[in-house]
């Protein structure tokens, strides 16, 4: 049996990779991809804890299912924003969108 901490290490690695992508990439779609990686890492964490600590309860799986829904909504709105910015300002680079930046 694989011990719990190995799953947690994979999840932590995935989260850090996603965080790096979010902080460092210039393309807005790449930033969204980093966010997806981070969401997946958190989901992996939820399911791993459910399996090892509290497998009798259903909460872990239900919570993960709701995370899926939120991720879908986030992707739909985020990508629509990117399209809108592309149409209006003709760029997909996050740092070029600086109209409201002080």
């Amino acid at each position: 049996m694989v011990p719990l901490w190995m799953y947690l290490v994979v999840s932590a690695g995935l989260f850090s990779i996603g965080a790096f992508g979010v902080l460092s990439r210039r393309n807005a779609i790449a930033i969204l991809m980093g966010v997806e990686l981070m969401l997946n890492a958190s989901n992996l964490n939820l399911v791993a804890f459910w399996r090892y600590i509290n497998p009798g309860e259903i909460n872990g799986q239900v919570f993960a299912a709701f995370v899926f829904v939120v991720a879908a909504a986030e992707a739909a709105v985020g990508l629509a924003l990117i399209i809108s910015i592309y149409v209006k300002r003709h760029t997909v680079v996050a740092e070029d969108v600086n109209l409201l930046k002080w």
Partner: protein
Amino acid sequence: MLDVYAPVAPLFILAILVGGIILILSRLMGPSKPHARKVATYESGMRPIGPAVRRLPVQFHRVGMLFILFDIEVIFFIPWALVFRDLGFYGLAVMGVFFYVLLIGLAYEWFAGGLEWEQ
């Protein structure tokens, strides 16, 4: 517990092996004599017009979004459908609320003209 997935493992390995072997073999054994005409974009034999990479129409995004909507519905419908008989009318009512709220989104897209391909 996980023994039921044992037959999947050979499938995985086989799939990766076959794909890899085909790629490697064709790279190794296939003749490669590139030529300006040969590597040009294929356009039924004539000189290519315009770039091969074009911007996709925005309608694809709308269709993709509708697909996400129905995909999420499926996630919740499958577990619900398995216990539908036990839940009776209550289950139907709960799912009805869920379904009709989601239907608002579809109706909006429909009446806003999101389903028309031509602008």
